[in-house]
């Protein structure tokens, strides 16, 4: 800082402001904010006083959910239901990842506003608010991925899921995973936008939203059992295509959640099940749409929260 006189100032001589500080370094600053927020998120998620709790929450919960579904199928369908085992286990494993990813961003808003009361300080820092939330959400996404991987491993080892690494459709998996990730994060951003507006502790919102989506995305049962309207809603959801893509990539030739006799897909497309290219194209289109909507919703929510004074308003205030 250099010295200069400030006319009309209460001080006869003041330090001039350094204009260089106003510019910032957008990419570097964004990366730094993201990485720091991710590190903070991980420290919070990994801050288990009891490792048993961590295990139950991140591993045992998704494994148990998959096992419950498998047992249900066994009881209801008997040996006829065995063909659906891989379908259910893979869908259930991936769904735990979806729930973690969607909840991550929303819970970061609630954590920082309600529990730590730091949201206002984070918000008025030069870091982009969305980037910080994204970083914070990464930890939960990582834990979700870990739970999904362990559930899959349990499925392969004990439940007869026919996962053969030599048969995995790696190109489809490589395309579907990042696109799905974008869609999950976008849905999480929408939920974060909703939580930004609420004055009550809306911790259950992400799971409620995920529960509603669970019905229409073909996670553990095929869409064709649903009414046409629900099937249509499912086909417009990127998660449906992502689950289908990952399922077909991991276990090629497994039952399709989208197609099948009497499905809306078959009716509209004229063929029984979607192929890899169709899945990728639909996933790309729906993910792009959801991301666009999420960005708009988040921006509007942020603006509204700032207008209503909600950024630092806790449920107790």
């Amino acid at each position, binding site marked *: 800082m250099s010295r200069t006189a400030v006319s009309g100032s*209460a001080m006869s001589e003041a*330090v001039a*402001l350094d204009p260089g500080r106003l510019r910032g370094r957008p990419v570097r600053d964004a990366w730094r904010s993201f990485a720091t927020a991710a590190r903070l998120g991980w420290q*919070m998620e990994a*801050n288990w006083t009891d490792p048993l709790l961590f295990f139950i929450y991140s591993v045992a919960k998704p494994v148990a959910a998959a096992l419950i579904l498998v047992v249900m199928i066994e009881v209801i369908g008997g040996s006829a239901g065995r063909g659906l085992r891989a379908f259910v286990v893979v869908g259930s494993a991936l769904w735990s990842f979806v729930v973690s990813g969607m909840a991550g961003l929303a819970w970061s808003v609630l954590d920082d506003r309600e529990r730590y*009361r730091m949201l206002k300080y984070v918000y008025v*820092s*030069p870091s982009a608010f969305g980037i910080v939330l994204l970083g914070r959400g990464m930890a939960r996404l990582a834990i979700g991925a870990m739970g999904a991987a362990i559930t899959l491993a349990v499925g392969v080892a004990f439940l007869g899921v026919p996962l053969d690494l030599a048969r995995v459709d790696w190109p489809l998996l490589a395309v579907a995973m990042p696109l799905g990730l974008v869609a999950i994060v976008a849905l999480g951003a929408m939920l974060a936008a909703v939580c930004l507006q609420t004055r009550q502790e809306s911790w259950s919102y992400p799971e409620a939203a995920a529960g509603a989506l669970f019905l229409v995305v073909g996670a553990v049962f095929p869409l064709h059992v649903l009414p046409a309207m629900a099937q249509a809603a499912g086909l417009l959801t990127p998660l449906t295509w992502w689950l289908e893509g990952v399922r077909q990539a991991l276990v090629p030739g497994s039952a399709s959640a989208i197609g099948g006799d009497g499905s809306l897909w078959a009716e509209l497309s004229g063929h029984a099940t979607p192929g890899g290219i169709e899945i990728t194209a639909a996933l790309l289109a729906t993910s792009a749409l959801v991301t666009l909507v999420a960005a708009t919703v988040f921006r509007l929510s942020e603006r509204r929260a700032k207008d209503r004074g909600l*950024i630092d308003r806790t449920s107790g205030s």
Partner: protein
Amino acid sequence: MTEAGPTPPAVETRGLERIYRIKPRPVTALAGVDVRVEPGEFFGLLGPNGAGKTTLIKILTTLLLPTSGSARVFGFDVVSETKQIRRIMNMVAGGEQSGYGILTTREQLWMFSQFYGLGTREGWRRVDELVELVGLTEQREQRVSTLSTGQRQKLNVARGLLNDPWILFLDEPTLGLDVGAARAVRELMTAWRAAVPGRTILLTTHYMAEADELCERIAIVDRGRILAIGTPAELKRRVQRESIFRLEVDRLAAGARALAPLPGVVSAVPASEADTGREAAGRGTVAITLVLRDDAALGGVVGALGELGARIVALRKSEPTLEDVFVELVGRGFEDEAEGDGARPPMPGAEPAAPGPSHTTHPHEPGEPSDEPLAT
């Protein structure tokens, strides 16, 4: 702001309004605020709870949008140029238990250093420097959740200084702190600003002694309006022409209100706790700040107290305080505003009632002549 041009005001608001659309009816928090703070100033916003101080800080720190009017920080608009403002300012609020409890003192500060755009190495260097500056060296590896209220506020102050802001917004920074911690925070702020000319501080407080001690200029705010701006001395001169007495009486059921309509009485309001009110409450008496047109009016007041059956416990004449200025401007004291909220706590770290040169009478019954002269 241009690089070559003159430095714009640190803060400039014009016709700033903020209305909260809440039920059952909208609340006007700011009703056309015009204020200008120059670079390098220690500027105070003094007013009771609900005056609009925090709302103004929130707007200036880009946390809240104004309803109408304009606000600029170093020439940058608070609505459209938030990025620039956030790079050059910081804020510290008091009276809250904020902090990532799971992180250590150093970790929390380092995390914010990254959010403020400091490099990794520079961040750690700055963190260690500030940890030492605010006196948290012993707690540097301690989790935030285990820090005391005062230590957390020191941590908050350190966070506020991390990015070496051009302007620091302090919103009731000593609220809820004990005497030592409050004094430490005030000393820190004073020393930080004095270290580099040009550093600007905007402080909101409802502790009059704090504003008087720290601020070069003060704006007195009430109900969303700025009632007066000036140096503490200038503000006090506004009420210098009147005679101010601190009166402590016993058996005055109607309180200060009973004296207000008497001839020659400009105002009669309960004295603030910081100023004698607390001691009076402890004795079960009523402490009153009495502003008279001149000393001659005192005889009438003493006579009236006798007629009301009250007994004068203490009487002293004093120099005006900022509260007297507030009373003069608004017609009521800070305590009146706090009614229903519980009494306003005294300023932490303040010396017991020291309202300037005074003369105190011995307790005597109303109407009984005092042996000591009252005029100064």
